[in-house]
């Protein structure tokens, strides 16, 4: 499929309790690079294999969690088209002018029925530290820390997941790659707009706008093991893994940043094409779906969010 419309997750903005500790974590441990700092104190980061200006924004606050999750779309025309479709579906859409973040053009923003703020944009400057383009090296500079390749996806918790499914599939043209159903309908959704097994995921939760994790891609299973070594060496709060997800088949480890926002680094996972059927899971097999080797959920998966 030629990719049109929404291309991929573009950036995520997270709240942290302690900026200095967060920067040590995301730069030295996860392996991101600092791009710049804003006058308002926000710090802009990117992973080494991303061309765009930034992909992770940290904002110091008195709570942890997610400010917003943004997708890049293929053109300004596409952005305008989505603005109309989102409005027609019944959400209020606001405009964020170019320059609100460095390197970024105009954005549109809206709150989906799970309570999360989602934004779309097209224009973004190329980063200075972008991957080499002419006669490329495998990396512009050798990766450090866990060596995160890119901001890959997120998992968000909130109510009205059925409405979220309708919105993402009918308005933003996503597909449901996998789902967990219970007697109340969709309990969890893995949504993709690309050939990745997921670009964003949702779990039903009574409180709106909650954040489960942000995920960064690693090259392979060995790199997940190296990430685990770093997690122990620096006494980083471990949540689960190294293990594999039955859902998406990703090889994974879950851990927390110093403010309690969950991170994932992962490798693998299957390629999804939009003619693939939705894989579905029943509640009696959900343990294997989330943690394939343990075959059961850990205590924190459904209860620990920021």
């Amino acid at each position, binding site marked *: 499929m030629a990719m049109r419309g929404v291309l991929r997750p573009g950036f995520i903005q997270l709240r942290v*309790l*302690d900026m200095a500790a967060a920067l040590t974590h995301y730069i030295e441990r996860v392996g991101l690079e600092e791009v710049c700092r804003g006058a308002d104190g926000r710090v802009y980061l990117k992973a080494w294999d991303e061309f765009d200006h930034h992909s992770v924004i940290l904002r110091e606050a*008195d*709570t*942890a*969690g997610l400010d917003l999750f943004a997708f890049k779309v293929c053109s300004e025309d596409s952005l305008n088209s989505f603005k109309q479709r989102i409005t027609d579906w019944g959400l209020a859409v606001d405009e964020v002018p170019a320059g609100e973040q460095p390197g970024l053009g105009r954005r549109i923003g809206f709150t989906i029925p799970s309570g999360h703020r989602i934004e779309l944009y097209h224009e973004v400057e190329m980063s200075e530290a972008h991957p080499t383009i002419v006669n490329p090296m495998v990396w512009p500079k050798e990766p450090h820390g866990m060596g995160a390749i890119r901001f890959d996806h997120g998992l968000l918790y909130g109510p009205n997941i059925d409405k979220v499914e309708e919105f993402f599939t009918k308005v933003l043209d996503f597909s449901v790659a996998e789902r967990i159903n219970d007697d109340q309908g969709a309990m969890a959704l893995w949504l993709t707009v690309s050939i990745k097994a997921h670009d964003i995921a949702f779990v039903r*939760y*009574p*409180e709106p706008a*909650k954040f489960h994790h942000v995920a960064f891609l690693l090259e392979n299973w060995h790199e997940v093991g190296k990430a685990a070594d770093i997690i*122990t*060496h*620096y*006494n980083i*709060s471990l*949540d689960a893994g190294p293990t594999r997800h039955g859902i998406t088949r990703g090889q994974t480890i879950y851990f*927390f*940043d*110093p*403010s*309690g*926002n*969950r991170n994932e680094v992962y490798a693998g996972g299957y390629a999804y094409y939009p003619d693939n059927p939705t894989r579905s899971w029943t509640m009696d097999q959900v343990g294997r779906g989330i943690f394939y080797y343990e075959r059961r959920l850990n*205590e*924190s998966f459904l*209860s*620990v*969010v*920021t």
Partner: protein
Amino acid sequence: MTNGDGGLAVRARNFQLRIGVDGTPFAGWPDRDLLAAMEAAGAKGVGVGCRGGGCGRCRVRVVSGEYTTGKMTRNHVSVEEEKNGYGLACRIYPRSDLVVIWEPLQPGTPR
């Protein structure tokens, strides 16, 4: 910051920490948060979440004892609640023997 001592170093000050007034005591130190002390001792009674002051899973009420606190999310412990003895176990550092009770907020509790 590394975790070099593995929890085995001899420490000068050692407090008795309890989850609940009838809880089995475990050892605590001023430089180790209550939740980490509980986990290191293999004790239970407070839910373990992010260990970073962000998720609120380990929210407790301190029944007795002196302690200091680190920064914790105001979603789960307001300024007023902190004054009244509430805190996150992962951000409570004992200054004496302590007794706490696990009182996490239910999801969606109005704040």
